[in-house]
């Protein structure tokens, strides 16, 4: 059939001042959410971030160690990033092609009405993405686990946790966290659980995957025991690390980024399962974060096969490794794309994705995922989508079904 255009009139378009002129970075996210009815569904973002580097001056007073405190009180940000904290080499933004937005503490934004800037910015991005709860995490601290100075990891982590609980979480019941455990010091980690487990807004604890402390060692059992006693979730948050010896062979960050997240998650998961940690501590609900889902069928097949061949090396197991994998939780971002939906459907089946996957955005990082990445999975039922978007997380953490608009109606007013 041929279609012909019949011009019915002429109007003036509204031309913007500059094509790349500053616009709200998530302008389009609201439209995507509205088109999919996401403002009528509970959405829990299991993994979002801010750049705590913008808040070092605020965090410094919470640091107990006087030498470390002095550094964070007085050094410039570049000095801290280059000479104090582990670096994280790799151009995230592809030579400036990606225009990320940093949720940073720079100055109090206009209209913040006294709300802490981190919370103020976060609530706005939540509104635009139709997110009702955000589980908030830091950014540079994701590789703090490779510092050769355990006292730095402990000192900064304790200070950051206290600062977050005092300044950001109280601003909204929609903002939660899983607090950082400095695993280089298991005694300190156990004390963190003691100090922070009952704090408002704390849903559990976090271990960063990029580290070289083998979690199976006896010295870490007190940490797992403390979590098990309190029936708390423990998440393993991954990251890329170009400093990894094998990754030094890669000349582009694309390779490091592609493999790094699942690689470190695989190491932690393998140690966790083969050393029977879930058997020893059955009350801990484990989660793996920011490695996507495509690695999971590999882990099921590979760990199961090796266990069949070498079961005496994993004597504590009472079931197949794949069964433990289907007991764990996973955050969705960065969810992979397959041209054939049935391939992703198979992956979901292998790890019980409908019941174990937890939507996450990873906003404002450069590969963030909108909730549409879940609603647009054609093989999922509507019930399955609702579970992954928020139902699974709500059940795991006991979150009441309260929409962001109910908590913060002013956020949704014109001009907010």
């Amino acid at each position, binding site marked *: *059939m*041929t*279609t*012909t*255009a*019949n*011009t*019915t*009139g*002429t*109007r*003036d*378009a*509204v*031309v*913007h001042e*500059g*094509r*790349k*002129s500053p*616009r709200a970075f998530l*302008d*389009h*996210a609201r*439209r*995507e959410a509205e088109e999919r009815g996401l403002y009528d569904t509970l959405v829990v973002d299991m993994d979002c971030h801010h750049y705590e580097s913008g808040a070092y001056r605020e965090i410094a007073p919470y640091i107990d160690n006087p030498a470390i405190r002095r550094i964070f009180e007085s050094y410039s940000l570049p000095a801290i990033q280059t000479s104090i904290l582990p670096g994280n080499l790799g151009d995230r*933004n*592809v030579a*400036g*092609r*990606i*225009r990320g937005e940093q949720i940073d503490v720079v100055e109090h934004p206009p209209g913040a009405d006294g709300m802490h800037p981190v919370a103020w910015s976060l609530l706005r991005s939540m509104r635009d993405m139709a997110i009702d709860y955000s589980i908030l995490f830091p950014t540079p601290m994701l590789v703090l686990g490779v510092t050769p100075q355990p006292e730095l990891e402990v000192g900064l982590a304790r200070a950051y946790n206290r600062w977050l609980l005092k300044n950001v979480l109280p601003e909204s019941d929609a903002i939660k966290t899983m607090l950082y455990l400095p695993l280089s010091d298991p005694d300190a980690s156990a004390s963190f659980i003691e100090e922070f487990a009952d704090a408002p807004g704390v849903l559990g604890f976090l271990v960063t995957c990029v580290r070289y402390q083998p979690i199976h060692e006896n010295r870490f059992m007190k940490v797992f025991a403390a979590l098990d006693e309190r029936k708390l979730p423990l998440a393993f948050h991954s990251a890329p690390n170009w400093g990894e010896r094998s990754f030094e062979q890669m000349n582009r960050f694309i390779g490091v980024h592609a493999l790094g997240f699942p690689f470190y998650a695989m190491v932690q998961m393998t140690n966790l399962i083969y050393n029977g940690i879930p058997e020893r501590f059955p009350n801990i609900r484990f989660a793996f974060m920011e490695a996507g889902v495509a690695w999971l069928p590999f882990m099921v097949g590979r760990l199961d096969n090796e266990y069949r061949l070498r079961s005496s090396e994993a004597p504590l197991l009472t079931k197949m490794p794949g069964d433990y994998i289907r007991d764990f939780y996973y955050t969705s971002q960065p969810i992979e794309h397959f041209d054939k939906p049935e391939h992703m459907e198979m992956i979901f089946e292998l790890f019980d994705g409908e019941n174990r996957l937890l939507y996450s955005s990873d906003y404002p990082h*450069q*590969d*963030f*995922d*909108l909730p*549409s*990445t879940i609603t647009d999975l054609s093989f999922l039922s509507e019930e399955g989508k609702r579970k992954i978007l928020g139902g699974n997380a709500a059940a795991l953490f006991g979150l009441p079904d309260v929409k962001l608009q109910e908590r913060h109606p002013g956020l949704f007013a014109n001009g907010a």
Partner: protein
Amino acid sequence: MEMQVIEYRIGRAEGIVEGDGVLAELDGLEVGVFRVKGKLVAYENRCRHQGGPVCTGEVLGKYEQVLAPDKTVLAERFSGERLHIVCPWHGWEYDLETGQCAVDPGIRLRSLDVVERDGDVFVLA
């Protein structure tokens, strides 16, 4: 079949320079209008990935590696022939001339017809 369209006046043609464009709103529809190889093209401002504001992104030459006859890499460069527009959300790249996704030509930006008349540029929507 007849489709009713409105001509939206974007502005003077000389206001859209080679290798760049303007962002305009046509009764709620956002479009980017660009000049590429002298020709005017228009696309809906909506990335096919997750709906990001693609037409507000960087316009760069396609990045190329030049190989020597022995297949070693001689040089790297931005193409002088082929321009890409890059979505600022996640970096998806599209051929600016055709709207095709750089890595999956089966995916395209939604294009709109552009008309130049008496020195003015119009997009039909």
